[in-house]
């Protein structure tokens, strides 16, 4: 009998390991740490935020000196702009939802705050309603096809945000909705606000009318650089891509990617999972050079 188990185990160990396993694992580790870094940030922010909120409103409004002093402290300066207004967890038979809802505050522009905050709230509620309907449907289908209710692993939805740049002039943050069923899918919503005008930035604002070509050139050049230096990286476009890789899809450059401004004053575009690369590459990001004379790269203290 030992023999049959040895044979069975040998067959199991003969399952071939694909070449891209280690690249997939590395990409997953990167994505995972990014998500957990966000989570840790709000845990820390939660405590500081609580203390800060207690005395903030009073102090900021009463003494300009204090407001000016606070703006110089990076962490507190950020808290004064984007704060978590609602954090909650919903856990029932078919879903596990964790929400950290951001809102804009202390920008000195109430109309802008109201507009953005209403938009964020409406968007999140709509997304969660859809996710709930899908979770219900999945669970019912699962039970109807003979699965036991106790064995169903709830659909997992996490709403979170990440501040990319926050200074006197620009505020840039990403709102992310991550839904995990058999696959994880993260939907990003970027908010890039010029605080001096109260307007949301657009790619043509930043790069000029030929912005699509600028992005395309920069992304293709960077893809070639990455695929040459690291053969584990793979994209559907670029000179290393197989010709038929994009046959089935629309030109990925015909739609505008999400973007944000980072704390180094750079413009970064983010492509959705599967848009320009296989799923294991996650959501690839690219720095796009800003035109000569752009003041976006000027960092205010």
């Amino acid at each position: 009998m030992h023999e049959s188990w040895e044979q069975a185990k040998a067959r199991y160990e003969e399952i071939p390991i694909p070449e891209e396993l280690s690249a997939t694992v590395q990409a997953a580790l990167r994505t995972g740490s990014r998500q957990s870094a966000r989570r840790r940030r709000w845990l820390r922010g939660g405590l500081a935020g609580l203390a800060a909120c207690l005395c903030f409103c009073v102090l900021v409004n009463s003494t300009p000196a204090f407001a000016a002093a606070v703006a110089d402290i990076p962490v507190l300066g950020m808290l004064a702009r984007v704060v978590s207004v609602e954090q909650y967890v919903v856990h029932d038979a078919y879903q596990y939802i964790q929400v950290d809802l951001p809102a804009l505050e202390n920008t000195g522009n109430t109309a802008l705050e109201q507009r953005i905050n209403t938009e964020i709230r409406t968007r999140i509620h709509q997304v969660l309603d859809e996710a709930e309907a899908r979770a219900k449907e999945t669970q019912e289908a699962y039970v109807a096809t003979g699965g036991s209710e106790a064995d169903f692993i709830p659909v997992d939805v996490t709403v979170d945000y990440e501040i990319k740049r926050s200074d006197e002039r620009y505020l840039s943050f990403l709102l992310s909705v991550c839904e995990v069923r058999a696959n994880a899918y993260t939907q990003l919503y970027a908010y890039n606000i010029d605080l001096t005008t109260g307007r949301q930035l657009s790619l043509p604002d930043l790069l000029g009318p030929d912005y699509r070509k600028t992005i395309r050139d920069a992304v293709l050049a960077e893809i070639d650089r990455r695929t040459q230096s690291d053969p584990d990286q793979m994209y559907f476009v670029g000179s290393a891509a197989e010709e038929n890789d994009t046959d089935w899809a629309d030109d990925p450059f015909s739609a505008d990617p999400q973007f944000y401004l980072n704390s180094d004053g750079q413009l970064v575009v983010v492509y959705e999972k599967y848009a320009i690369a296989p799923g294991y590459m996650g959501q690839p990001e690219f720095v796009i050079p800003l035109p000569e004379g752009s003041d976006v790269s000027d960092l205010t203290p």
Partner: protein
Amino acid sequence: MVHAPTTRELLSGYIVEHQEDFYRLAYSYVKNRDAALDVVQESIVRALSRADSLRDPDRVKTWFYRILVNESINHFRRSSRLVPLDVLPAETPGEARDDAARLDLYDAIERLNTAEQTIIRLRFFQDMKLEEIAQVTGVNLNTVKSRLYQSLRKLKEMTKEDCNDA
């Protein structure tokens, strides 16, 4: 928060070191290379984003395998509802009971239910202790034992051999 990075480093190190084991286990459920890669990827993302819930670093193995097994079963169930007709095995259930056909042990394991398959794979292919299997599958030790013996009996029936050397 001082200890948090070490938990995460420990977890990342553990994942990198055992990635091939994870892949084989995932593959044994989903039977498809790309799907198995997806399962490994999603398990890692999920594990890292929940790293704070790993209270006891000594349990990193069972804690991670629990996520991996859940992801594998979820994926397997979802996709098994969608198998195209021409991929379905041509055999009928009746053939399994054909006394003349002696099933290979490895193929016989595939005929067990998911919970039984999990226990057999963890016990014999990943060489886990019964207590570890209990932690991974979230059931108590006695349930693991009785499911294991029940699975071995079924395997014996199917292969006409005595598999009982757990």
